[in-house]
C-alpha cells in the first residue's frame, strides 16, 4: 500500500468533515427551534470530532499535528469537496446539504468498516451509531418538510437542485483510486456514489420532491485538488483568526 494514496484519502475525508462541521456550527444559537438547534450542534460536534480522529491518524503517519494542519493551511491546500464550504444560506439548503453529505458519510464509513487499514476500520465501526443518528435525523427532516407545505416543498426542491452538482463532487475520484481499491483500503468513489444515489432517491421518492435526471447534471469537481470556490478562504481566515495571532503558543 502506498502511503501517499492513503494520506490522500484521509485528508479529503478529514477536510470534508472539518469544513462541514464548521459550517453547521454557525447555526448554534440561531436554529429554527430550540431542540433542533441542539441536535444540529451535536451533529456538528460529531463531525468535527470525526475529522480530528482522521487528522490524528495522519499525524501518526508523519503529518503535522491536527491543529497545525487544520488552522494554518490555506484554501489551495484543502481537499474538501466544494459542497461543504458553501455558505449556509437558509435552513432548507443546510438541511439538504446535511442530508446529502451525511448519507454519503454513512455509506463511506460503512464501506470502511471492511478497510484493510485497521485504524480506519476501527474508527468506522466505532462511529456507526453517530452516523445512524445523523441519517435518521436527516431522513426524517427531509421526508417531513418535503411533504409539508407548498413553501417547504418549493424551498427544498430549489435547494436540492442547487446542491446536487456540488454533492456529486463528493465522489470526485482520486489520482490513486485504483491503488486504494486494489489495496483493500477503500472500495472507491464510484461504488459509494451508486449506493448514495439509490439511497438519496429512495428518501426523495417518499416526499413530494422530484429528483432530476442525474445524467444531465454536471458535477462540480476540483475541491479534491485544491480548486475551491471563493467561499473557502474567508472561512479559513475566520477559523484561524485567533490561532494565527500566535500559532506557536497554547491557547
Amino acid at each position, binding site marked *: 500500500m502506498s502511503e501517499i494514496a492513503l494520506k490522500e484519502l484521509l485528508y479529503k475525508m478529514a477536510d470534508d468533515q472539518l469544513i462541514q462541521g464548521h459550517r453547521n456550527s*454557525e447555526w448554534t444559537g*440561531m436554529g429554527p*427551534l*430550540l*431542540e*433542533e438547534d*441542539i*441536535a444540529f*450542534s*451535536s451533529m456538528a*460536534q460529531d463531525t468535527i*470530532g470525526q475529522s480530528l480522529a482522521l487528522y490524528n491518524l495522519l499525524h501518526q503517519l508523519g503529518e503535522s499535528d491536527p491543529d497545525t494542519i487544520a488552522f494554518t493551511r490555506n484554501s489551495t491546500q484543502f481537499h474538501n469537496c466544494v459542497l461543504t464550504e458553501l*455558505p449556509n444560506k*437558509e435552513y432548507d439548503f443546510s438541511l439538504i446539504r446535511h442530508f446529502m453529505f451525511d448519507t454519503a458519510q454513512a455509506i463511506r464509513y460503512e464501506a470502511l468498516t471492511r478497510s484493510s487499514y485497521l485504524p480506519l476500520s476501527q474508527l468506522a465501526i*466505532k*462511529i*456507526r*451509531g*453517530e452516523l*445512524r*443518528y445523523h441519517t*435518521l*435525523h436527516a431522513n*426524517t427532516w427531509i421526508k*417531513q418538510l418535503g411533504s409539508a407545505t407548498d413553501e417547504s416543498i418549493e424551498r427544498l426542491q430549489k435547494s436540492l437542485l442547487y446542491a446536487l452538482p456540488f454533492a456529486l463532487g463528493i465522489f470526485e475520484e482520486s489520482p490513486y483510486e485504483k491503488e486504494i481499491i486494489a489495496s483493500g483500503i477503500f472500495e472507491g468513489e464510484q461504488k459509494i456514489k451508486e449506493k448514495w444515489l439509490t439511497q438519496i432517491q429512495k428518501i426523495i421518492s417518499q416526499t413530494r420532491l422530484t429528483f432530476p435526471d442525474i445524467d444531465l447534471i454536471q458535477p462540480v469537481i476540483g475541491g479534491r485538488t485544491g480548486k475551491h470556490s471563493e467561499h473557502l478562504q474567508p472561512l479559513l481566515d*475566520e477559523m484561524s483568526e485567533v490561532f494565527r495571532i500566535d500559532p506557536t503558543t497554547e491557547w
Partner: protein
Amino acid sequence: MNSLDPRVIRLPKIEQEDIISPKIPLDQFGTFEVFVEPKEGKPFQHEGIVHAPNLEMAYILAKEAFTRRFTCTSLYVVDTREVYVSPMTEGENNAYELIPDAKESLNEKTTFEIYHLIKRGKQHVHQGHVAASNPTEAMAIAKTIYNKGKTVFNIWAIQSDKIRFTTQEEKDLWVTLPEKKFRDASDYKGGSKLKAFLEKEK
C-alpha cells in the same frame, strides 16, 4: 447588520414588517414527555419535555436535548396528552388509595406502562406494565400489583403503543458518548499548568 460578530454580519436582512403578519398559533408545537434508561436493566426515568411537531420528530429531538451528556442506554418519548395522571398526594397519603378498586372489564385489553413518583420533588420512574382496557383500569390493576412498600405520591399510566421506543438496531446511538470528553469537566484540569505558572511567578 453592523456587528463585531461575523455570523451576524452574514445574516440576511429581514424587515420588521414581516413580523406583523400574525403568527400561526402553536408556533412552538405541542409537547412530548421524554424518558431515559440510564443503564441496561435500570428503570426508565422521566427527564423532561421537548416541543416537537410529531412523535418521530420528538424522538429525534429528545435524543440530543436529553442524552447528549450523561451515559445512557435507551430513550423513549410520548405525547404529553397520552399520559394519564393520578391525583397528587403528600405526607403519608398514598396516591393508590385514591384509585378505586379494579372492576375487571371484558373489553379488549392493551398494555399500559406504569410510573411511580416516590419522592416529591423527584421524577417519575417506570415500574412495570399491566394489561387493561383503559387507563383507569390500568391504574386499578397496578394497585393490586405494584402498590407495595413505599408510599406513592403520583401514578402515571401510558398506553405502550403510543410510545416511540428505541428499536433494537438503534441501540448503538449512544456508544461513543463516554468518549466525548470534550463535554466533560474532567477534561479541563488546569492544575499542572497553573502550578507551573505559580512556581515561575514566585
